[in-house]
């Protein structure tokens, strides 16, 4: 055994890789049991391990590199029952020595966890919550975001629509707080990229059970009447819970496309992407899981790979060392989207291109050409440094 270890160290020296002692890095993932609900379309399987499988792929990728650098990565997953307190779980894992956590939780829960005494010496990654407040006013120094914000998604779509010169928008807003927040992000994007919201209407119709015989008559009639408005270029729908947006497509009074949360969408990841080496990445994931990678899986993968990349370069598992490297100028992550991803040092948001997709193909990638920025064109998506009030991040 000893000779094996000595052999390994000699090999590492020969390899020009510093002979760090074997380093074990455990990353926690805390998520919540999904609420049972029928998906809108029977073509889409119910995903019960959203985020978890992405994290697992990240761990596999990190460990392949780790084989050569003497680092091993492990995932510790905790799934909270509906109503269970996330703080207890974070404390438990902290007690086991974990200091790196991925969180697939809501914004209030994220803040509660980030403010725990145990979280002071930890680094947390938000892999799902899109709330702009977490990136603008309610930032936390120990909370980084690999999931894009609503503003980033709205801006990515807004830039593409500006390129198309589809600048007269018909905004349809659902009843949930998330729908309202996404609509607010779209209004902001309209102002930034020279579009005009010519009509805005709240959606109040309850579509009801999707499987009823002849149920489509309802939606066909309702959507047709609902969309009899003044002329516009594209209908943008804010329906984050995916209950009605899809019903508007092909049913509008005028022959106009639908985008936003359904139809043409801006997303950090989609099964349709095959560029920049994504083919292999997607195939690896599908072979392991039998399904496509979702945006939350992708955000989890980004978090694990960010930790892996920082640990490889700094030879450390210390959260403060990793954080400093991640927010510093030398961190660049190959994220299968053509340009490196990196963290904004003013609010901990991962800057990344967003894909503009229809359900079956990649339509475009934002930022669009011509939208300029003094530092990085990626910072034309979402809230920029001067717009945030995070202070000493």
């Amino acid at each position, binding site marked *: 055994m000893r000779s094996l270890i000595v052999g390994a160290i000699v090999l590492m020296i020969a*390899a*020009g*890789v510093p002979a760090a002692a074997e380093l074990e890095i455990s990353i926690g993932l805390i998520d919540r049991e999904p609420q049972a609900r029928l998906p809108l379309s029977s073509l889409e399987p119910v995903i019960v391990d959203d985020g978890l499988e992405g994290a697992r792929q990240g761990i596999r990728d990190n460990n*392949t590199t780790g084989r050569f650098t003497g680092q091993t990565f492990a995932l510790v997953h905790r799934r909270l029952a509906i109503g269970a307190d996330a703080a207890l779980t974070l404390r438990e894992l902290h007690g086991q020595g974990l200091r790196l956590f991925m969180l697939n939780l809501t914004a209030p829960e994220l803040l509660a966890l980030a403010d725990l005494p145990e979280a002071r010496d930890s680094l947390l990654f938000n892999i799902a919550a899109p709330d702009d407040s977490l990136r603008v006013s309610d930032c936390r120094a120990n909370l980084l975001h690999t999931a894009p914000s609503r503003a980033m998604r709205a801006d990515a779509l807004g830039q593409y629509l500006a390129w198309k010169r589809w600048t007269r928008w018909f905004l349809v807003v659902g009843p949930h707080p998330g729908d309202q927040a996404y609509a607010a992000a779209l209004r902001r994007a309209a102002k930034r990229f020279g579009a005009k919201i010519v009509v805005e209407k709240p959606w109040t119709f309850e579509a009801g059970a999707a499987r009823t015989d002849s149920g489509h008559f309802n939606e066909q009639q309702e959507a047709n009447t609902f969309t009899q408005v003044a002329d516009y270029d594209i209908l943008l729908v804010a329906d984050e819970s995916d209950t009605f947006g899809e019903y508007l497509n092909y049913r509008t009074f005028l022959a106009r496309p639908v985008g936003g949360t359904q139809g043409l969408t801006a997303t950090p990841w989609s099964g349709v992407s095959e560029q920049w*080496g994504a083919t292999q990445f997607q195939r690896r994931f599908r072979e392991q899981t039998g399904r496509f990678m979702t945006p939350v899986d992708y955000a989890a993968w980004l978090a694990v790979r960010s930790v892996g990349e920082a640990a490889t370069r700094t030879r450390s598992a210390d959260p403060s060392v990793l954080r400093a490297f991640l927010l510093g100028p030398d961190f660049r992550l190959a994220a299968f989207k053509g340009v*490196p991803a990196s963290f904004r040092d003013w609010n901990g948001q991962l800057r990344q291109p967003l894909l503009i997709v229809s359900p079956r193909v990649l339509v475009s990638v934002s930022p669009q050409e011509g939208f300029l920025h003094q530092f990085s064109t990626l910072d034309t998506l979402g809230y920029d440094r001067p717009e945030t009030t995070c202070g000493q991040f």
Partner: protein
Amino acid sequence: MKQKQHKTWSAATAVLGVWLLTPAAADAYTVYVSSEKDNTITVVDGETLDIKATVKVGPRPRGIALSKDQKSLYVCTSDADHIEVLDLATLKVTHTLPSGPDPELLALGPDGRLLYVANEDDNMVTVVDVEGRSKVAEIQVGVEPEGMGVSPDGKWLVNTSETTNMAHFIDLATREVAANVLVDQRPRVAQFTPDSKQVWVSSEIGGNVSVIDAATKEKIKVISFEIPGLRRESIQPVGIRISDDGKRAFVALGPAARVAVIDTATLEVEKYLLVGQRVWNLEFSPDQQRLFTTNGVSNDMSVIDLERLKVRKTVPVGRLPWGVVVAP
């Protein structure tokens, strides 16, 4: 003779304002370009730059390499999961070689019999016997193996892995990984110097080139690139070629649409040459007077005059040109 040739050229350029062919017929040669999107190999006369033929091959041809006898071309048809062998006399695919899934880049060993292929999908380098037409070995490497460089002395194969961010030194005698050198993000191409003493590795997302000492496996220098008016993200080094005399290296910088010219003695960038969009791979003419570049987004090939270090002409080829090879 050389002097005379030079004069003819200058006179012709001055009078006609176009680039005429140089007269020496003896060193005629052919350029082959793989077009990833069109599934073709474009055959270009190296002197006149006329397109002589466009050959349909299997789906998504990327890495291409010349056989040792220079009579056939090995084509990684990535989506067909094998290598096609194109006979250069008849321009017909005569047979295929097994390669493992999704072959992307390949390198021929110095004996001309063994072909080393990177399989992006299964973290392997496959060793293929081109005469026996069979797989003879598989070597486990990092995630998404990509770049393949064989040292001219036949001792080393350097493979890069895109997600692991390493250059793996494979001892060709034992076919074992002997050393791993950490480089910057998404390493794409590994190219040895003619004396086999250094290997140069381009990092597409890292935006630089690591120069590694083949004996000590230490990085001698990491060369970075700065082009006024261009953002850091757009500088994405991929293809590398080093001149036969070992004095100059050329690096294709992808979306930056430039080829960097590097002095190998000082390891400093001498000059940036503006070429087509998303410049990917490079190859010299046999006389080392010209350098050909594949420009993926502008669907063309730039021709660089190496004596003057100027881009002389752009030749439209198939869509998404990827690999380029020159044969006498």
